[in-house]
């Protein structure tokens, strides 16, 4: 942050990033589906905030487009889609089955965050881009945590939310490293997220209808014997 041409925005962006990371940790640790969904929405809002901050600093209209798209798809469309496809799963209050207990998963998450910093270090050193030093490691950490969520959660909707958290991580890194990605690519990516949600939501509903459960981790009919 020191020596950055935009000290205040850099500080605010770093704060946004820290909270972004906390929400990613929350998605790993929460017990209830609805809480994960709410954390995911907060995470998407923080992604939007970061895009706006960087948009102001770098005077890039593309980033405002990213912000608008993120708000539209991730905070409005995804909850709507989930409500319409798997509402019984999302709004039922029960605990999510998980492979690891919460303290262990949180400790492993801390290790993953350190790893994210270690592996992104050479990239940041190679090219001087404002904000990449903040957003890239945090984005990669969120990717790791999202993937980790998919591993430790055995149920369909939490796995879906983990996948969407990975996507958020990619875009959190993306707004800093490619602030001028063509709008058409952003639009296409924006279409992608609701399609993922829709497909996986419908698939979850089909699995629930057919098998009476959404614990996809329990399904193990297919393997080498």
């Amino acid at each position, binding site marked *: 942050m*020191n020596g950055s041409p935009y000290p205040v925005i850099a500080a605010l962006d770093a704060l946004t990033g820290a909270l972004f990371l906390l929400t990613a940790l929350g998605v790993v*640790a929460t017990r209830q589906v609805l809480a994960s969904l709410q954390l995911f929405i907060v995470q998407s809002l923080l992604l939007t905030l970061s895009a706006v901050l960087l948009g102001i600093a770098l005077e890039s209209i593309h980033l405002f487009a990213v912000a608008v798209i993120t708000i539209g798809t991730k905070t409005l469309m995804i909850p709507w889609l989930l409500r319409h496809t798997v509402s019984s799963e999302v709004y039922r209050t029960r605990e999510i089955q998980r492979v690891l207990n919460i303290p262990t998963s*949180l400790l492993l998450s801390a290790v993953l965050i350190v790893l994210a910093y270690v592996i992104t270090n050479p990239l940041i050193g190679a090219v001087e881009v404002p904000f990449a030093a903040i957003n890239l*490691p945090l984005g990669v950490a969120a990717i790791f945590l999202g993937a980790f969520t998919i591993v430790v959660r055995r149920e369909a909707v939490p796995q879906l939310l983990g996948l969407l958290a990975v996507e958020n991580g990619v875009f959190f890194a993306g707004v800093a490293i490619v602030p001028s990605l063509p709008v058409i690519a952003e639009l296409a990516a924006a279409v992608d997220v609701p399609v993922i949600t829709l497909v996986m939501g419908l698939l979850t509903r089909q699995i629930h209808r057919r098998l009476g459960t959404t614990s996809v981790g329990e399904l193990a009919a297919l393997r080498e014997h």
Partner: protein
Amino acid sequence: MLERIAYNLLQVFVLVAFAPLIEGVVSRLKEILQSKRGPSIFQPYRDIWKLLHKDEIVSDHSSWIFRFAPYVAFAAPVFVALLIPVLTRYPLFFAFMGDMLGGGFVLALGGFFATLAAVDTANPYGPMGASRTRMVGFLAEPVFIVVFLTVSFVAGSTIPYIVQTRWVTPIANFFEPSHVLLMIAFLMLILAEDGRIPVDSPSGQFELAMIDRSKSLEYSGRGAALMKWAGAMKFMVLTIIFLNVLVTPWGLAPEGSGLAGVLIAIPLVLLKIFGFILVLVYIESSLAKLRLFRITEFLGAAFVTSVVAMITRLSEI
């Protein structure tokens, strides 16, 4: 010189005098939030007064530790109040005696004696609460260590007077992610250390579910009064460290402002504490108490938050 000794003693006086008031305000606010009227905010003073005038009954089977513990528990926060910035921005006479780690050790000593005393009586509830307190303590310990390490790494010092100015000069530092995360982690620590919801229910009367309060169940009369007072002071000390060192180091008397500055600082500090209490009461009222084995998860979350704070700090974000 003498002035500084006087101010230092004034700090102790503020702590001893206002700690029960703060407890009274907390419980009153909580009752109001639950649509009840609640006791007067001065009720803790009356309780302490009443207990001080009652006979003390001590079990024949207990040792000197049981009699000695209330005094240690009472003295620990008083001693810490000499070290930390309660009213002034500049170090006072006794501040050289210990840094933040020293303060932590002294507070832990009070808790240690309270635990020993609880085991000492052979009352079945005492040791149970004591072991649970220890469990929470063990789990909170790593968080404490990481928070202190990070704080001292940032400020280059473990002296609270140096730390407090670091976060607000320039003001952009306040929004540093490591700072915000540390605040969150420390707030969770206060909840755990002081036995507040979601870790423990301070107003619960059910002995089996108690964690912190069951340690003083066996005390009566003067011992009970001291334990109660000590508990209130410990909470106030933790709050003051949180507010004056980590969160809002404003409103303290600057160097050279004399007695007037220190006296003005008293209401300002109390006002800050009142603001913090509002937040605390909101947290306590909106959460449910965790099951005992979920406390590990709560403190695990605090630990990870503090570790993330440290990582973001070390990588120079």
